């Protein structure tokens, strides 16, 4: 049992990486447009639409208010519908992505809202359409913030993925609970914590560098 601990760690790390990478990609692809819609439809935005802004805002708030462990269980029927199963690493991607999307949407919204309105006006004065404003102004100007926010989202998701063990998804958190806590193996527990610290540090370092590279302000 203890002789194969490198295998245990490797497998758990891989599962964690798979869950966060897949769910993170979905959260980015879905959360950024959601953040853009939130900014665009807000009062004074480029396509003011108060009712839509209010509805989306309420949905985002609702999802953000539910604790992830509750979301994980509550979404089991949906997970089964999408992933075909409600157990395992792939199945955990669904609730993780659904939980992270509104989270990232809010973070993206903050960055996008910080873009100087003068820049939007400048492109408007050139005859740019709304889509041009999104493509040439909002996203490129907010990019450093969008990347930094995405880093925060990924780090949060690494933490959240620990709970995915509850539906048999495995991962580092699951390893720590089952071997470290339930079997009183402090060595495994400490090991998991060290791996998590390393993982988060690498993600944060990479994210910071990427954000700096696109920052020309």
């Amino acid at each position, binding site marked *: 049992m203890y002789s194969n601990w490198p295998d245990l760690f490797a497998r758990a790390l891989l599962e964690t990486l798979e869950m966060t990478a897949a769910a993170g990609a979905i959260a980015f692809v879905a959360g950024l447009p959601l953040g853009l819609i939130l900014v665009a439809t807000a009062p004074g935005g480029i396509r003011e639409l108060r009712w839509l802004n209010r509805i989306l805002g309420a949905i985002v708030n609702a999802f953000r208010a539910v604790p992830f462990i509750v979301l994980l269980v509550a979404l089991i029927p949906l997970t089964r519908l999408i992933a075909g199963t409600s157990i395992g690493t792939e199945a955990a991607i669904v609730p993780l992505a659904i939980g992270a999307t509104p989270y990232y949407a809010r973070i993206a919204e903050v960055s996008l809202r910080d873009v100087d309105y003068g820049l939007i*006006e400048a492109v408007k*004065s*050139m005859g740019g359409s709304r889509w041009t404003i999104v493509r040439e102004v909002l996203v*490129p100007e907010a990019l450093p913030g969008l990347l930094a926010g995405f880093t925060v989202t990924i780090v949060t998701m690494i933490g959240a993925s620990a709970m995915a063990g509850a539906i048999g998804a495995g991962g580092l958190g699951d390893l720590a609970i089952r071997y470290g806590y339930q079997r009183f193996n402090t060595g495994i527990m400490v090991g998991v914590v060290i791996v998590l610290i390393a993982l988060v540090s690498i993600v944060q370092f990479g994210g910071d560098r990427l954000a700096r590279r696109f920052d020309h302000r």
Partner: protein
Amino acid sequence: MSCCMDWWDPETAAFAENIPCSDCVRVEGDFVLRRPSIPGGAVVRVGNVSKSFGRVTALKDVTFEVQRGEILGIIGRSGAGKSTLIRCLNGLEKPGRGRVEILGQDIVPLPERRLQLVRQRIGMIFQHFNLLSAKTVAENVALPLKIAGVPWRERDFRVQDLLALVGLSDKASVYPSKLSGGQKQRVGIARALAAEPALLLCDEATSALDPETTSSILALLRDINRRLGLTIVLITHEMNVVRTVADRVIVLDQGRIVEEGDVWRVFTAPEADLTQRLIGGQTNELPSAIRSGLRNEWRRGTDLVLRLQLSGSAAENPVLAQLTRDLEVLPVVLDASVQRVQDHALASFTVAFRDPGEPLARRIGEYLASRVSRLEVLGYVQQLA
């Protein structure tokens, strides 16, 4: 090679020989006249425009025209409605009432899509430059061309020409944050000119710049106006800006036009109170010792103090010397200045005559009244010096 405009200054034409004027477009290296003449000669025609924000009236019944190739300065204090007015000219703001015609087309009722096409023909520069920080200088200048659907190969050529025009060829691949304020505004100008606009709007374009940079930007605007025949509307709160570049000026106060005319005329003979106050700091003041001793009525032994202004060609006449010869009086100059407002001279003198006695004082007044542009009897003062 040059475009349809053959009056270019040969010295500077080489500098921008690849830039077509606002009527021409470059097709495969040749200049082609693109547009027929602009209807009525007016690029902008604003009719009875009013605009209010809630209860605050920003513009009230504003009517004016901007002729092709002219530089119109709109001046006023902050809150006078200048910003709202200039933003009505490219539809960034919709007036509550009235017409805004650009090249003969009323843009007020236009839907957003059509408005975007009109805006592609109107360049705009801003007080805070509004350059995109994530794009290089060249990418910023190329953006209006991208929006207008110009293929990238052609974009490249034009960007090079435009950067040469504003003297920033070596900064093409630099990000705006590395530039000085003046350089940023030059990029702003190049960007505004990229899509060969028929009209350039300047929204407090020099207000964030130091005086030296301001003059170089104003010189560039004047140069572009002369060379490309570009029509320019600029708003500012600085009298000096209007005086340096504008042909005509509109003075805006609380959303109304209080004065309008050629810059030299408004400067030499301001009519509205506000205009006089705006220019006020630039005309001469009487020394306080004399001002406090001035009286309206003549008494024995008092000196006559007059202020006279000579504008235009009259400023070149030796009026005071003639007066001395013809009436044999000796004027003492208390204050004098000669200003030039776009080739129109404005001379103003404050002079005193030693104890002239009443009949002579009247003769001096009559003599001068017919020879100067403006005569003001300031009064009589005891014991001048």
